[in-house]
C-alpha cells in the first residue's frame, strides 16, 4: 500500500469509527453512565414511572407520553408540536436539559461529553428495540437506598400540614421549573419522597442542608410532605 493509500484507508477508518460512536456508542460503558439516572428513572423488565418517566421504549416515543405524569410546560409544548424522541433530540436534552426545555423538571445538570452521551443512549436503546421483550436491567435500577419498616411507608400524610412544611422546601426547590444545583421535588411519588428523606435523615445521602432539614422531621412530617408534593 502506498503512503497516500494508507492515509486514505486510515482516514476512512477514523470517519467510520466516528460515525459508529455517534450513532451507536458503547452500551456497556453507557450502563455505567446510566448510574447517574437511577435516582429518578427506571428501565428494564418491570420498570415503572417514578420520580421520572420510565425509559423503556423511549426511542420513538412521543415526548410527554406517559399518562398522568406531571410534565413541565416546556415538554408539553414539544408534545403539542408532535415531537418524538430520537437520538438527536435525546442527545441535546441530556447535554443541557434547560437549554433544550427551559422549564424542565428533570433535575440534571447535563452531560458535556458527547462520547458519554452516545454510550448512555446506546444503553437506553437496548430497552427500546423490542417492546415485546424488554431485557432485565442491572439491579441498581430498582434497589431502594434505605430499608424502612412497613408502618413508616404506610403512614398517611396530613396534606394541610404538608403544605405548611413544604413552604420551607420552596425556598430552594422551585414549585415550577428547576435549576442545575437544586432538583425539583414537585410531583414526586410519595414512596420515593419518603425514601429520599429518610436516606438524608439517616445520613446515607451526603448533602448537609438536606441532612439538617430531614434530620428534624418526624416520620409523620415526612409523610405529610410526601403527600403534599405528590399532589402539587
Amino acid at each position, binding site marked *: 500500500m502506498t503512503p497516500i493509500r494508507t492515509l486514505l484507508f486510515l482516514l476512512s477508518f477514523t470517519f467510520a469509527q466516528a460515525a459508529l460512536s455517534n450513532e451507536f456508542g458503547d452500551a456497556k460503558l453507557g450502563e455505567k453512565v446510566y448510574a447517574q439516572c437511577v435516582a429518578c428513572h427506571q428501565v428494564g423488565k418491570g420498570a415503572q414511572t417514578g420520580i421520572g418517566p420510565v425509559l423503556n421504549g423511549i426511542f420513538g416515543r412521543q415526548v410527554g407520553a406517559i399518562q398522568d405524569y406531571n410534565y413541565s410546560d416546556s415538554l408539553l409544548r414539544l408534545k403539542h408540536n408532535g415531537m418524538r424522541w430520537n437520538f438527536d433530540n435525546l442527545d441535546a436534552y441530556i447535554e443541557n436539559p434547560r437549554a433544550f426545555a427551559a422549564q424542565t423538571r428533570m433535575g440534571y*445538570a447535563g452531560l458535556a461529553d458527547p462520547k458519554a452521551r452516545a454510550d448512555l443512549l446506546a444503553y437506553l436503546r437496548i430497552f427500546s428495540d423490542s417492546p415485546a421483550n424488554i431485557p432485565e436491567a442491572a439491579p441498581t435500577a430498582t434497589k431502594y437506598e434505605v430499608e424502612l419498616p412497613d408502618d413508616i411507608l404506610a403512614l398517611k400524610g396530613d396534606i*394541610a*400540614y404538608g*403544605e*405548611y*412544611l413544604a*413552604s*420551607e422546601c*420552596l*425556598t*430552594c*426547590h*422551585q*414549585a*415550577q*421549573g428547576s*435549576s*442545575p*444545583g*437544586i432538583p425539583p421535588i414537585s410531583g414526586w411519588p410519595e414512596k420515593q419522597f419518603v425514601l429520599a428523606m429518610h436516606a438524608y435523615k439517616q445520613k446515607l445521602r451526603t*448533602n*448537609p*442542608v438536606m*441532612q*439538617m*432539614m430531614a*434530620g*428534624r422531621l418526624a416520620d409523620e412530617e415526612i409523610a405529610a410532605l410526601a403527600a403534599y408534593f405528590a399532589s402539587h
Partner: protein
Amino acid sequence: MSFNRRHFLELAAGTTAALAAPAVIGMAKPRVVVIGGGAGGATAARYIAKDSKGAIDVTLIEPSRVYYTCFFSNLYLGGERTMQSLAHTYGKLASSHGINVVHDWAIGIDRDTRTITLASGYKMGYDRLILSPGIDFVDGAVAGWDTSKQNKIPHAYKGGSQTELLKAQLEAMPKGGTFAMVAPPNPYRCPPGPYERVSMIAHLLKQQNPTAKIIVADPKPKFSKEGLFREAWAKHYAGMIDWVGPNFGGNNVSVDADAMILNIDGEAVKVDVCNVIPAMKAGRICEIAGITEGNWAPVSGHTMQSRVDDKIYVLGDATNQGDMPKSAYSANSQAKVAAMAVRAELTGSRVFPAKFSNTCWSMLGTDDGVKVGASYQATDEKIASVGGFISKPGESADLRKATFQESLGWYDGITADMFS
C-alpha cells in the same frame, strides 16, 4: 311561608356559613398591610394572599418599582453576575395573587387607630401590620462617614445603585491602587457578606488590576466562616488581602472622604476606593412605629409578633429574635411562620409549630462555593438554634463546585418564592 321567603332564608344561611371567620365575624374582609417588599415582606404578602385564597385583603407597600437583591450583589462586584440578573418586579404579586402593590414610602404609623401614613399623604388602615423594612445605618458609627458621603464612599449594603457605584469605582481604580473596607460590628445583615465581598473584589482585581491591594479594617476579633475565607484568600488571592482586626486597631477607624484617607488607629492610609459598612439598626419605620428596643425590634419566635404590639409582626434584618442570622433566607423563613400565624388569627386557619431554617452560601472564587446553615425552633424566650453545619476546609473541587451550583439554585428558588 312563601317560596321566596324560604329561598331567601336558605341563601342567607349558606352565605353566613361561607363567611364565618372567628376573629372577624361581622367585619369586612380583614386587611393586612406589609411594609417592605424584600425577602421577608414579599414572601409574607405572597403566602398570605396565596393561601387565604381571597379571604384576606393584602397590600404591599414598597418604594422601589424594581427590587435589586442585596444577596448575590457581591457576585456582581466580582464580575460573575449582571445587575439585570439581580432585578425583580412586583407584577406577578398583583396579577397572580391579587396583592395591592403600592409604590410609596410609609412615613407614619398610628398604632392606636391602626393607620399608616404614606409619603404621598394617603392614609390606610390595617387589622394586622407586617414590617419588613430591612436595615438602616447607625449615625456616627464610623467617624467621618454619614450617608451624605455615600456617593464618595459607598456602603453598598442595600442592593442597586450603591452596588453599581462601588463596582464603577473599582473598575476605575488606578493600577496597583488600594481598596479599603471598613467592616461592621455585630449584629449586621449577612454575616459572611463583607468577607464574600472581599473575596469577590479580589477576584475582580486579580483579573483587571492584579497589583492592587485590599485592606479590611474590622472591629470584630473573628468573623463568619473565617477559616474558609482565610483558606480561600491564601489559595486564590495570595498577598492581596490585609485584614486588620481589633488587636491592630481595626476597631478604631475614621475616614476623610475629601482626602480619601482611612485612619486605622492613628495611622493614615491613602486609599483609592473605600467601602464603609457602618453599624446597623432596624429600618427607620420600626422606630417611627415605636416598637424598637435599642437598635432592633424584639419579636416572639412563635409568631414573629412584636413584643410591643401584638397587631404588628416584624420580619428579617430589623428584628431581635434570638439565634438566626440576619439574612434573606432567614427573613423568607420567618415570613412563612408569620403568614401562617396571621392567617390563623384572621381566618381561623390551622396553627402549626414554628420552624425556621437558614443557609448562607458564599462564593470564594471560580466554582468555589461554601455554605453554613442551621435550623431553629421557637422557645418562649427566643428563636433557638437546634443544630447546624458548615463547609470544611480542604473540600474537593467537585464538592465546592456543586455547592456553588447549589447557591445558584437557591437564588432562583428564593426569588421565585418571593415574586412568582
